[in-house]
């Protein structure tokens, strides 16, 4: 023990995600690759009608196909629904409500045999009137989809603050517009997959892609007629989730029905077409917004009506107004605000949770409305936003406490870094001059919960840390890894606390029989919540180690630190002893023997919503301001995104590489939402269920990206960090739309801004101009 060990920090450094090398070189064994002994393949026969009575189902020919081991229909099941309002029985009986509705499931020895059997199932239907538009579904006399849902009304939300009527009278300008936002889907690279396996005691193991393993058991069990405690959830690596695995979907209990009937493991895996047609979508919506402003630029009110197409059944999509309303009421200082939403059952696909969760839709509206209001009062987009931006300590009408609000700093920074106003004015002046290519620049901002969201009874996460005789740490966390990078973040946090190298830490988070409870991967919460839990558990281990070191040295615990695998003197870094040797001494101390095993359950200091949806639901909030620079080809209508500059309030960067990757991936989603991605649905049927015609962004059109992280420690965050996973998906689309307006003077209230839509609008505008002359 000689040389002093300097105090260094891992926080803010770039570390490689532990799963990255295997994913890059093809070693990762995804759930889709798994094969269990005697495993059967299960597949689902779905409705090919949008709305029909099922008169008969004949499976006799299918059953005769060699290799077929089981066929199940609704009659073989408890007929208990899954999904947010439990209105979705895994297999449907008598009536189908959408093209994706599950009618028959088949298990067989090979995929080929099951395909043959599916083709031989004969179903007789009697068509019923189908409704695809939510407004039509709410009309009096419209066909009722669910007996217990009068008027086809699914979920509704309302929050009311202040006096809209008075505020409208006090306004100098009132904007009144309708927006229609569209269907997109997650396009996970790993399509939907589950394996159900019973043991001889009747206990069930589910190998699943779920991103909420603990409540998953609770949600799944009733549909099976089982006790949640008899279900074990194993989470093999997944090829993306992004919110699409935050609910139980019919294919999961269906795999269980087949496994139960055959007494063999059954794997159900989606084709790419099913991944498009039978996975949840992002929630589409029609917004009617009225927003007011005074001539001096002060915002006066916002009044929003949202009509949601619920689709045939209910998953998380119908609850997205919960998040939408926070943005409508709380993004920028607006004294009087109202938000109302209704979700109406139709014979369309249904929406689930999807990264950004309602805020993608709400921000498309608010960020373009802010641009329009600025123009109405002859202010530039930056000054107008700055004068209405909240400052630290302000509280939104729904009681989001913006204690560390950095919205103004984000706007100022992005404006300065992009030379925004100079470019904006130059492009605006060029709008009507000749020339095929027009450039534009646009800004959008938003805010989102960054310290979890208390929508369940607990928003907590548990951690167990064990150190072995070699100072290797096993970190057992409730937080799932679905690609978002939590394994790296927790590794860094624990390594930081314990002064051991990151490679000496093993993360365990794939088995509900081992890991402590966590509410799931959603709401940008894992870094904040699981990070705090891991930090606190690590702190307990650290304290235990330092106490033991103090007992075995003549230095007080307070004067010791853990660095580079050693216990050192805090002031000068001089090593006192090696941590691993100390751990062995503690372990083999006879009657005083102790192991370092600590645990923690962290519940964030947030509150559930009360009446009128008021409540500080998150322990922290984050703001972002993004600027898009585009070139519009006015002939073809193609919008090229040249650059996206993102200024993001992050509290504190934990894993720099991780946060940059998360920003890049999120922005790619946002660009797709704004420019190219759209599910084309006609008569309830998805017409482009493939990568050829559903246009996700590819590498060549990835724009130049520039990130600026504003670091200002959040007092409640682990090492000051906030969760920002969703904002990069939320903000890009309206920034692009505002940039396109700057380029060509045309607004689009209906993303995506596809070449055809843009070209048509340009041609129409030119025609109108000619007509006017």
């Amino acid at each position: 023990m000689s040389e002093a060990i300097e105090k260094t920090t891992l926080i803010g450094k770039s570390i490689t995600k532990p799963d990255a090398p295997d994913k890059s070189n093809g070693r990762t064994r995804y759930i889709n690759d798994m094969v269990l002994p005697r495993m059967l393949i299960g597949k689902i026969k779905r409705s090919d009608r949008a709305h029909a009575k099922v008169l008969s189902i004949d499976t006799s020919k299918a059953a005769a196909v060699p290799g077929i081991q089981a066929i199940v229909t609704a009659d073989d099941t408890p007929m208990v629904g899954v999904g947010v309002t439990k209105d979705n029985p895994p297999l449907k009986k008598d009536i189908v409500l959408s093209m994706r509705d599950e009618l028959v499931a088949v298990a067989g020895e090979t995929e080929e045999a099951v395909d043959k059997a599916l083709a031989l199932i004969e179903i007789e239907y009697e068509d019923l009137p189908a409704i695809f538009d939510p407004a039509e579904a709410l009309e009096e006399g419209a066909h009722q989809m669910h007996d217990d849902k009068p008027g086809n009304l699914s979920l509704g939300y309302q929050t009311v603050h202040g006096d809209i009527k008075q505020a409208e009278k006090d306004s100098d300008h009132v904007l009144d517009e309708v927006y229609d936002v569209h269907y997109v889907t997650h396009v996970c690279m790993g399509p939907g997959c589950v394996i159900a396996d019973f043991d001889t005691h009747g206990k069930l193991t589910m190998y699943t892609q779920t991103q909420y393993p603990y409540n998953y058991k609770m949600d799944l069990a009733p549909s099976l007629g089982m006790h949640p405690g008899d279900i074990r959830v194993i989470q093999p690596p997944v090829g993306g989730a992004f919110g699409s695995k935050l609910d139980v979907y019919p294919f999961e209990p269906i795999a269980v029905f087949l496994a139960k009937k055959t007494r063999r493991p059954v794997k159900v895996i989606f084709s790419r077409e099913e991944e498009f047609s039978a996975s949840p979508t992002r929630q589409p919506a029609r917004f009617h917004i009225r927003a007011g402003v005074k001539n001096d630029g002060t915002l006066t009110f916002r009044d929003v009506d949202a009509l949601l197409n619920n689709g045939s059944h209910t998953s998380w999509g119908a609850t997205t107004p919960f998040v939408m309303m926070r943005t409508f009421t709380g993004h920028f200082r607006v004294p009087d605000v109202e938000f109302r939403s209704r979700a109406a059952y139709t014979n369309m696909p249904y929406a689930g949770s999807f990264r950004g969760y309602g805020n993608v839709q709400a921000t498309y509206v608010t960020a373009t409305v802010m641009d329009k209001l600025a123009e109405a009062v002859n202010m530039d987009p930056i000054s107008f936003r700055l004068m209405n931006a909240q400052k630290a300590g302000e509280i939104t009408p729904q009681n989001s406490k913006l204690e560390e609000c950095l919205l103004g700093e984000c706007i100022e920074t992005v404006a300065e870094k992009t030379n925004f106003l100079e470019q904006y004015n130059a492009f605006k002046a060029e709008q009507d001059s000749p020339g095929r290519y027009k450039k534009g620049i646009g800004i959008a901002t938003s805010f989102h919960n960054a310290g979890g969201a208390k929508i369940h009874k607990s928003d907590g996460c548990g951690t167990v840390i064990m150190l072995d005789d070699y100072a290797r740490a096993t970190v057992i966390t409730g937080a799932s890894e679905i690609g978002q990078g939590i394994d790296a973040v927790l590794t860094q946090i624990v390594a930081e606390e314990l002064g051991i190298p990151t490679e000496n830490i093993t993360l365990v988070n794939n088995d509900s029989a081992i890991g402590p409870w966590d509410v799931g991967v959603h709401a940008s919460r894992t870094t904040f919540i699981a990070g705090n839990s891991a930090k606190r558990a690590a702190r307990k281990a650290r304290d235990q180690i330092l106490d033991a070191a103090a007992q075995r040295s003549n230095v007080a615990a307070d004067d010791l630190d853990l660095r580079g695998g050693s216990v050192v003197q805090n002031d000068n870094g001089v090593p006192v002893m090696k941590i691993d040797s100390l751990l062995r001494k503690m372990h083999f101390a006879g009657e005083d023997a102790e192991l370092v095993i600590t645990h923690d359950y962290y519940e964030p200091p947030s509150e559930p919503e009360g009446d009128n949806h008021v409540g500080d639901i998150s322990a922290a909030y984050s703001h972002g301001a993004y600027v898009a620079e585009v070139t519009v080809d006015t002939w073809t209508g193609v919008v090229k995104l040249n650059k996206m500059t993102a200024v993001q309030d992050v509290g504190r960067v934990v894993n720099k590489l991780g946060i940059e990757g998360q920003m890049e991936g999120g922005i790619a989603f946002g660009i797709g939402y704004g420019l190219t991605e759209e599910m084309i649905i006609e008569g309830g049927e998805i017409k482009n269920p493939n990568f050829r015609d559903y246009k996700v962004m590819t590498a060549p059109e990835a724009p130049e990206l520039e990130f600026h992280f504003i670091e200002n420690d959040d007092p409640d965050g682990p090492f000051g960090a906030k969760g920002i996973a969703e904002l990069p998906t939320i903000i890009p689309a309206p920034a692009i739309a505002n940039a396109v307006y700057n380029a060509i003077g045309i607004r689009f209230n209906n993303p995506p801004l596809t070449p055809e839509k843009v070209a048509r609008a340009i041609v129409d505008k030119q025609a109108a101009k000619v007509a006017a002359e």
Partner: protein
Amino acid sequence: MMIEYENYVAATSVAEATKTLAEGNATVVAGGTDLMVQTAASGRGANTTLLNIRRISDLRGVALDGGRVTIGALTTITDLLTDGVVADAASILADTANRFASNQIRNMATVGGNICNASPAGDMIIPLLVLDADVELSAWRDGAVTTRAVALNEFFTGPGKCVKTEDELLTSISFNRPAEGFVGQFGKTGPRPALEISMVSVGVGGIVDNGGLTNARVVYGAVAPTPIRAAKTEAALEGLSLNEASIQSVLDVADSEVNPISDVRASDWYRRHLVRVMTQEVLQNVANG
């Protein structure tokens, strides 16, 4: 839906391949970039034999002989991008190859496969029509390989359909080396610069003469059941001095000659609009040298 082939033949010569085709019920695979996807999606190619022709080394490569350029059917799109003869004699092929799908697909996909797939939106077909190419079809008949040449312009009969009979194999494509002063331009569009099936594609070629084109060729993809030569547009263009007004008159003719449909990728309105603006772009490029 998986297809269960009963036989797999990996031919190493045209004779072997055409013999296999003569036995019937064979699906040809070359690059596999279309077949693999079609098989998975629609069960296309539900024949009992899978005939791999990729090992017939004679069918790959570009040659210039006596003023005629011959491209083997197995020449990949990447080959066209890098081939010296193509660059020198028919750079429109390299320009098109540069817009074709993605690097990975270009490395596998073959010119012959792109033609035989007979998509109205097939990219390589457009410049080959501009170049007045012929295709060579080979078959095993009466104990020997026999060949016939078919003008590419007469090869296609509908979406996914062509005059090639079941026992024939497309073995090469050839065209006369364009004369001095030839220019050829290819254009396609879609929301993405790569991995994009053309909403509309356009090819224009001719000998630059006096600010216009002689021996003009105008070709459109994805505006009709097959890629088409636009004869009236060609006639309107022939010898026309290109300027803003005259280009507009050509566009009116082109508009009258195409008959696009509306589908999931684009409306007929947008396809017509693209025919105009893309033709305008190409003609302006010609006019501007």
